[in-house]
């Protein structure tokens, strides 16, 4: 179902905190802010099914970017990442 960078909006600080405390989502705490209307927002990276789940719980979610595409693009910016984790026991 994909993987997305999202902005999550909710009405109370407790519900904002629940995203990590209760639902254990990969939300980025340092992006949390209170908006002029008193509501709260935070950014995170979520799989598609969690977006549906949160929507069902009354959170408003805006998809900002496709996390899969960002990952593919940024990987090109590594000079040469080498191979996936190798045995380094001889080092």
């Amino acid at each position, binding site marked *: 179902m994909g993987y997305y960078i999202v902005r999550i909006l909710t009405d109370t600080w407790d519900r904002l*905190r629940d995203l990590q405390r209760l639902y254990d989502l990969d939300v980025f705490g340092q*992006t949390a802010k209170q908006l002029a209307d008193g509501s709260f927002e935070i950014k995170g990276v979520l799989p598609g099914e969690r977006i549906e789940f949160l929507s069902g719980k009354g959170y408003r979610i805006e998809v900002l970017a496709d996390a899969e595409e960002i990952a593919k693009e940024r990987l090109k910016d590594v000079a040469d990442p080498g191979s996936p984790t190798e045995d380094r026991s001889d080092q």
Partner: protein
Amino acid sequence: MVPGILTDEEVRQVEAAGYTVEIVSDLSRVAEERVQEVSHINRFAEVAGLSGFEKRAVLGYMTADEVESALVNLQALHPDLVTLIELPNRTWENRVSHAVRIRAGTNMDRAGVLFTGSMHAREWGGSDICINFLVNLINAYSASSALTYGGKNFPAAQVRTILENLDVFVFPDVNPDGKHYSQTYNPNSGTSQGFWWRKNRNPNNAVGSSSPGVDLNRNFDFLWASEIGTSSSPSSFTYKGQSAFSEPESRNVKYLFDTYPNIGYFVDVHSYGGLILYNWGDDNNQTTDPGQNFLNPAYNGKRGNLTDTLYGEFIPAQDKEMIVKLADRMNSALAAVRGKNYTVQQSVGLYPTSATSDDYVFSRHIVNGLNRKVYAYTIEFGEEFVPPFSEMNNIIQEICAAMSELCWAAAGP
């Protein structure tokens, strides 16, 4: 028939003497090809890589191996300025980590500044910032030249004062296993969750879990047991580990403070948010009631709730003033690079945390009066975890300017 390695001139001499020479391989070409291979795999594998740092660094994000090579070769290139510090704890994937200390002159009474980077796996650019900072500072000192980042200039005299009055410690890649895992995720795997990895690579076998990783920035000894903004579940993004300092990577950071007691300033470079964060992270600050502090068990269970006034973490007014003043100076230097301001704020924000590096570091002198007070910060650079590298190059300039300004503040008159 005798195999050998000859120069063009020697080939001509041997042929003139009546021998037949068959050229099997042109070693110059082979060498050229190999050099390209080496620089492609590890741009800083040799000392020469550091000499051409500016041209090579702009080619892309550094890998964990490149960061290590850069530190080793920086010491080889500048043995008079650089001390390589092998950290005592190997990572879960058996990597050896290094920090460096740079200093010049004979002043024995000097404070230290420590910068750390890439504690979270997906925050690749922290180590690029740290290595650029090191190389630029050393090159400027060696050339007796100014250090310039965009519109921010540190005259040669300031550079000299920094290195001759200060010990500058840099531990660029706190979590090399995690960064390697993030940088080598398979784009054809159908999921990019490896790219977005945050924690280290502890397999968590000891807790019987199939979910690897501990969040290193929830593994320090500051209210570790409180569970404020942390989790005891190994599958969680904010899993705090089995105990404070259960992880070799966080123990390596602690080792630097234990071993070099002159360190009085600390910046942990993270992404993202455009923020310069100062203590505390567990609750709102207050300057009036010293009894409300993290050591007081009477307040266990009352911390971390921003909607009540039951508890505020005590910070002396003069410490707060100093800590904000230094943060503002870093921000001014950063903004001078290309006109972009970061936000200076208390780290608690809207998401209280515990067991983070900056709070542990600032708490050390409160827990043990023999420890030096360390002004501690977290810088959250950029507007995404891994910015496009073209933008990362701009960010490197900004954060290096902030780091240099902190050094100047610590070393200057």
